[in-house]
């Protein structure tokens, strides 16, 4: 001890005397039952900890069994799908109602039929229809020029292998209905009457109000 433990004064025995008095109280050693109790506590905790080790082992075993089962199901031969059903689904045009076999609900497979066969017999995705050909509508005078340009381009590119040249057809203006409406120069626009009603007025302009008298 490095503290000042001997303050002096007359309030009792000195530090060394105090120590000798304190030595009168001798405490016996710990009884052996403490060690026995701790030994039991240790073994009980170790025994309680063992099931925790089995949990991941059991989980891993279950996952391994599941994986083996899935692999076994994949290797099983799949029953061929009924031909009439595949044809009926793949046809873009809707078949006649009498020729179509009623399809079972997807969540309820037919009894006695394996799951893989039911999955294989499901109708495939409907093919996406091809986009329509682009149609360019031009004025009759421009169509002649474009047709001439197309013919020259075809003559140039015909010698290059692997290239396709767009087909150019010239239609008469009367043969096809033009999507551009014919509008006369003297026709009054639809909004003309409304505009005439407000033609002499200025639009509303918001002006700031002065806040001081200056």
């Amino acid at each position, binding site marked *: 001890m490095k503290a*000042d433990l001997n303050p002096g004064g007359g309030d*009792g025995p000195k530090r060394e*005397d105090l120590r000798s008095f*304190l030595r009168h109280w*001798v405490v016996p050693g*710990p*009884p052996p039952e403490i060690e026995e109790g*701790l030994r039991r506590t*240790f073994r009980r905790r170790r025994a309680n900890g063992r099931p925790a080790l089995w949990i991941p082992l059991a989980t891993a075993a279950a996952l391994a069994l599941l994986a083996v089962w899935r692999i076994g199901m994949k290797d099983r031969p799949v029953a061929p799908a009924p031909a009439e059903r595949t044809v009926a689904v793949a046809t873009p045009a809707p078949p006649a109602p009498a020729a179509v076999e009623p399809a079972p609900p997807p969540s309820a497979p037919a009894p006695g039929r394996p799951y893989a066969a039911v999955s294989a017999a499901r109708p495939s995705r409907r093919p996406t229809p091809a986009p329509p050909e682009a149609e360019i509508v031009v004025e009759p005078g421009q169509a002649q020029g474009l047709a001439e340009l197309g013919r020259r381009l075809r003559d140039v590119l015909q010698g290059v292998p692997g290239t396709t040249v767009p087909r150019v057809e010239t239609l008469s203006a009367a043969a096809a209905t033009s999507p551009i409406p014919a509008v006369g120069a003297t026709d009054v626009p639809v909004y003309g009457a409304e505009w005439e009603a407000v033609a002499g007025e200025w639009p509303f302009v918001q002006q700031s109000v002065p806040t001081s008298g200056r």
Partner: protein
Amino acid sequence: MSADPRLRSDEELLRATAGGDEGAFLEIYRRYRERVYRFAYRMTGSADAARDVTHTCFASLLEAPFRYDGRRAGLGTYLCAAARNQSLRHASRAWRERPAGTSADLRPAKGPGPLERVLEDERAWIVRKALSNLAPLHREVLILAEYEELDLATIAEIVGAEVGAVKVRLHRARRKLRSALEVHVRSGALAVE
């Protein structure tokens, strides 16, 4: 790592204990059981309480080993701090539940024996009585300093106080104990050896 548990460090023994090595755990107990039990006995004044406190302290190494941080203090200091907390808890509980009169453990041992044995028991009883009358904060620093002979820094670590506060508590504890023993010194019950 050595096979003999007595040659292994505390950290190695703790790791082995966490791994389920019963021998390592018992080696930790054998290293520190004397200090923990004696301190708990002197703090509580009861052998039964000291037994419970000692068991709880060492069992805490199994229940919550993460509480011990080897970078802060040694394992002996940690166990003494745990014993101190358990003893204070036990003392407050015993104070509420104690009947009128003194505890049975504070009475001097009775029975036939040589005269010197009787006198020694009486002296021990006087010291125990004087120590038990000290405030717990004074009693713990006095026990740790005088009986366990720990330095101020270790005592401060155990009781969770500054070194200066430990110094002050120790000074006051000594003064009070001297005052309590002065009567017995004058009466001749206690004599300087």
